[in-house]
């Protein structure tokens, strides 16, 4: 059933995405040289998060897929983060 029309992502968009990804990578390596204390991990995770959003949206075509797909991805991430969060109810208060 190929009734759903396919969206072709132009090469240019993809290359731009890669460049942004590379910049973000460089940024996260550079940032570790600075001292943010405990915010360091946070910054690293934020940058990684931004990168993964780009990969998901453009390389994995989520931006062009039916709504259902991004919703599912978000739900899965939410479940995972909640599990992590709940686990730390134990480890943060031992």
């Amino acid at each position: 059933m190929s009734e759903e029309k396919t969206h072709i992502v132009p090469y240019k968009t993809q290359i731009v995405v890669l460049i942004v990804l590379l910049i973000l990578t460089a940024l996260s390596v550079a940032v570790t040289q600075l001292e943010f204390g405990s915010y360091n991990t946070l910054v690293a995770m934020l940058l990684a998060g931004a990168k993964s959003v780009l990969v998901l949206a453009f390389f994995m075509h989520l931006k062009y897929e039916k709504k259902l797909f991004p919703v599912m991805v978000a739900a899965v991430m939410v479940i995972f983060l909640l599990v992590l969060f709940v686990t730390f109810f134990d480890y943060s208060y031992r």
Partner: protein
Amino acid sequence: MTDNTRQKQPSFLEYQGRYKGILGWILSTDHKRIGLLYLYTMLFFFSVAAILGILMKTQLLAPGETIMGPQTYNSFFTLHGIIMIFIIVVPGLPAVFGNFFLPIMIGAKDVAFPRLNLLSWWVYIIGILIVLTSQFTGGGPPDTGWTFYAPYSFQTPTNVLPAVFGAFVMGFSSILTGINFVVTIHRLRAPGMSWLKMPLFPWTLYGTAWIQILATPVIGITLLLIVAERMLGIGFFDPALGGDPILYQHLFWIYSHPAVYIMILPAMGVISEIIPVFSKKSIFGYRAIVLSTMAIAFVGYFVWGHHMFTSGMSGRALFTFSFLTFLVAIPSAIKVFNWVATMHKGSLHLHTPFFWAVSFLFVFMVGGLTGLVLGALATNVHLHDTHFVVAHFHFIVFGGTGFAFMGAIHYWFPKMFGRMYDAKWANLGWGIFFIGFLSLYLPMFYLGMMGMPRRYYDYLPEFHGPNILSSLGAWVMISGILIIFANLIRSARSGPRTSEKNPWGGKTLEWQVDTPPTLENYDEIPRVDETPYDYRDYTGIDNPNN
């Protein structure tokens, strides 16, 4: 291959495909044949594990060593638990009845990925074989319990690796089935069947499939970590290397609690099918049941810690988990009320499936309500790891899933085999079974409250009385099960043939197709515009066969 003529297709039982004889089954991608393959496999292993159960109960007939020593007992409850959980009830209803009826009930010719479906049966079989090798090779049968708690699981000299690895492989089978069902339900519903016109059994399978997809990888990686721990000494759970054994318990239960809802949700779906059909009345609160199914699937993900109340977790975690545990009980309560309300003002037809459904309600309530006792912090501290827990989960796993399974098979039997079973024997078997069940497991609650810990092959004399009753109950129950199985097996092979499409007067799609279903279920995909449980046209006059 079909040429789109109107000529009648053969029934799936008779159809001759590329392969003949047994190969025509074990290489068939027909969802119905795969369903039956699972059924036969499970019946076989179920018998094995049930015998182990009976032997354990016989050992517990009196204090001291009656028929077996500790090593045997320990390996028995381990194998019993592994078979019952990983081989029977986790795949159980979805793999057997889900495979057989999901496509038919939503008006599809097969599941979305038929070949993947066959593959998952094969993966399942391979997993079983790996588990079985653990019994006969290496340092002897594993003796860790089905929970494989670290650090014992990597210190015991017994053959834990194959058991763990087999369970890991079976996880893949579970995941593949889950993926298959979610895609099937999303993509292959008959035209007109909107989400809220889908019958409830498919709905529960949908919820279950999501849990299978999102929880099974957790056990996969956990078991893999145990393998790494045993082979490489990586140290994640080894206190001598800085690991935390409690973390193992977290990971294990992050899967295994959702897994108990994998076991019970399809059972609830079956009950939601049976009750309206035999009450001749629309299910009460369809939307509430759908919502509560999804709520269980979601909230059930975050209550795993209630298995670890005495494990040394932080107090704050105990508080949170106990609280969430109580929340997850609510959707189950809603369902029970809706089922009972469905019977209200119905016209109840007391056939064997309905007996199973009603007794399901009872044992499920006992199991669920004792779950609440376990969910409360203070009472759990006393009851954890005692026979109270054993009674709770036999009531709800065996009582819930097992009874639903028996209900399902008596309900769908004519459709699956095109033959009818003997109702008298079926009812008699049910009665004996039910009595045996109660006398087997009720005393265990009492034993637990008295303080008898579980996984004890021997006990103090003060626990003797209730254990006698319990062991005798096991024998009564096994007589019941023998009657039931004998009746079913005889009927499947030589019972009276029937091609009656709709013996019970059901409204869902599987009762509109041929008996037994044809190879492709439908010549033409039906259009569905009604809700699945509308009995307004029921005249009060029975179907002649009914």
